[in-house]
């Protein structure tokens, strides 16, 4: 365990550097970002399940076309925060959220906000790949179907485009009519990513997308995240610190429902400001 951590510490900065140097942010996006506020703005976000206060005053911004990783021990609230960003917590009884969350300027918890619209704009990929028991084709275009699009040509194009975007097209193009459940674990997870990007969201949330995958499949997803970053803002929860170091631009460390430290990944893994962060990333607890 210790050895692994040391190794990580030595490799992490390189990876972070690589990402920062190679990322190409389109001019328009830079212009937009220069004037406006970050993609996702969280101000004093609190959440409680009944009497159980889970998130305490989380304040952080997630920038446009960047990967933000949320790390922390189990039960620290990182997944809960992630699920706040597309209001998936609405599905649980007795949940109360307060504080402000703005996605592209839209206050998603405002009473006038349409939760369907929020979820369409903020896609999500889950820890356990969950394709529908339908064909690969139907899986990818599910979001379009529910939006009422039934034009075959549009759907075909969206399917191919999304599968290419999820780096799955070459593997499945000849068997689009087969069940999505016949794919391998990694392919299923990429299918879920294709499904999420088919509706052209602005933000993609990933809840431990690689935790159930083998290292090779994990690598593919990580490469994919790296590519997707050019077009989407990505927030990912991960337990794999190396992964956080490899794919993210900024990292947030949570502990007991509080945001302990939030900053550029390279800095965080090389020179954490907080003692807790240091203890966690060096493997002293968690």
């Amino acid at each position: 365990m210790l050895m692994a951590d040391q190794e990580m510490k030595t490799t992490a900065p390189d990876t972070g550097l690589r990402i920062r140097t190679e990322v190409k942010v389109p001019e328009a996006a830079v212009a937009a970002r220069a004037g406006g506020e970050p993609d996702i703005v969280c101000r004093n976000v609190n959440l409680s399940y009944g009497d159980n206060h889970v998130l305490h005053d989380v304040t952080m911004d997630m920038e446009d076309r960047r990967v933000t990783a949320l790390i922390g021990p189990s039960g620290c609230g990182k997944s809960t925060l992630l699920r706040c960003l597309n209001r998936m917590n609405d599905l649980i009884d007795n949940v109360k959220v307060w504080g402000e969350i703005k996605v592209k300027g839209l206050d998603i918890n405002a009473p006038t906000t349409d939760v369907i619209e929020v979820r369409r704009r903020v896609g999500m990929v889950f820890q356990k790949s969950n394709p529908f028991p339908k064909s690969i084709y139907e899986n990818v275009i599910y979001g379009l179907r529910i939006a009422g699009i039934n034009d075959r040509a549009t759907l075909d194009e969206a399917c191919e485009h999304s599968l290419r975007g999820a780096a799955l097209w070459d593997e499945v193009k000849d068997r689009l009519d087969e069940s999505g459940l016949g794919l391998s674990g990694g392919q299923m997870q990429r299918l879920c990513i294709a499904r999420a990007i088919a509706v052209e969201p602005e933000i993609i949330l990933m809840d431990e997308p690689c935790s159930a995958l083998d290292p090779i499949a994990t690598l593919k997803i990580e490469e994919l995240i790296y590519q997707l970053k050019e077009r989407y803002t990505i927030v990912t929860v991960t337990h794999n610190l190396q992964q956080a170091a490899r794919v993210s631009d900024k990292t947030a460390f949570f502990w007991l429902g509080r945001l302990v430290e939030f900053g550029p990944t390279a800095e965080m893994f090389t020179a954490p400001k907080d003692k807790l962060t240091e203890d966690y990333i060096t493997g002293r607890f968690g």
Partner: protein
Amino acid sequence: MASGTASDAPRTAAPPRSKWTRGEHLIWLTGSALGICLLMILGLLLVILTNGLGMFWPSRIEQLTLKDGSVLAGEPVQRQAIPNPGQPDHLKKHRVQLKVGNRDLYGFDFKWVDESEIAKREEAAGLYLIERSEYGPLIGTPVKVVEGEKEIATGAAAVRARLPELVAKADRDREAVKAIEKDEIGGVNYTLERIRLDRRKLDYRLKQDPSRDQSAERRALEKREQEQKARYAELEEKLAKRMEAATGTRVTFRTVDGQEKELRALDVYRAYPANELSWPGRARVYGSRLWSFLTDEPREANTEGGIFPAIFGTVMMVFLMSLAVVPLGVLAALYLREYARQGPLVRTVRIAVNNLAGVPSIVFGVFGLGFFVYFVGGGIDRIFFPEALPTPTYGTGGILWASLTLALLTVPVVIVAAEEALAAVPRSMREASLAMGATRFQTILRVVLPAAAPGILTGLILAMARAAGEVAPLMLTGVVKLAPELPLDGFFPFFHLDRKFMHLGFHIYDVGFQSPNVEAAKPMVYTTTVFLLIIVVLMNITAITVRNYLRQKYKTSAF
């Protein structure tokens, strides 16, 4: 198992487990419980199958000459020891029961004969068993065939040669007569009835609005009625001619005690020489009897003929019930599982639904009679068919009300099964759909329901099996001993959901316990039971096939 701490320490043997803790007793106990269940089910099936399917087998006819000189012939049915308690011959002597037939001549179908009184027992050659339209079978030897006034065959051999042809012709004649009576005259009658109702409708309207001029409508009705009546007269004549042609031929048989009986050839359904049939011949008779049992209508107060209307009624009733119960049950389960806030109220509702399955079915029958037949049906009559009143149209028992009553009876089964199926759909699948921006409704329609379909079908299978076997509520809501018309026929609007119908379960009760001739009808009861079981099994197999197909299609990820 070994508890030694060091490798060189002596192995301390684990204490031997007693047989009790090893659980072998439990294996025996569970095994025998299953065995007893299987044994009882197999025994029941065996009794039903042997009695039911044996009915069609043409058995031999024994001719008995008694010591007093009288002669009897019949199919031996059973043999039993004669009880004579306290006497030395108690259960030593035996008697046999013969199915002697010829009810019109003897006044009975069955006769017990003490074996001690029998002088001679033989399987006499030349004895025929004739199935005919009335009075049960006739047993005797053929004597002559008469056509009009002319004798065209005399003597056993000559008649025998002509019999197959006669029977075949009788079949054709019956078909032709039935076609005229049922389809053509039936059609005219149906139209006449409609005209009568149309006229009553006009009368009814006149009462409400006396100023309206109805003369044109009435003239049209008058004209249609005249046409139909002319057609009716025409058909009557055609039928009379056909009958005349068909009834000209008559066959005479002589029973073993010398009485002669003349039958119209038209009335002969089947005739075979019981003691001279080869095995293939017997198999043919068996097959033909089985076929006519399945496809014919009942005769003679249901104790003879077939059960086709009952099969049809049962299947259609179960079908209608399924159409009603699945949407109702699934929608209720959806609300309970997907929308309702889980709490004490929902728990109470769930318990209540489960308990509903324990309400005696006759109570559902009474409810169906009061609510569906009198309230809903009566309401429909008042609004849509006021001209026919006081004759009810929907305000009386019918296949629709019976199906709805059974749907109510079986809806708890479907709700429980559907709820479990919905609960088994993985949460991750719902979340995936909702996270895509689907509404709850879209998620249910596109993801949850397809995935839950196999489980819902399991509920339907259970419901169908229960509904097909239920009789008591039907007796109050629309089943009859003999329905002259099927609920589905060629006359517009084809489905006549207001009609009464026949049902296999009720048929069993009716033939077995309400029949004027219970003894003769006993095999019918078994056979009807066999076919009720077969139909339930067939319907279940269909539903199971659909379910397996859906399971294959929507099998959820194993990962």
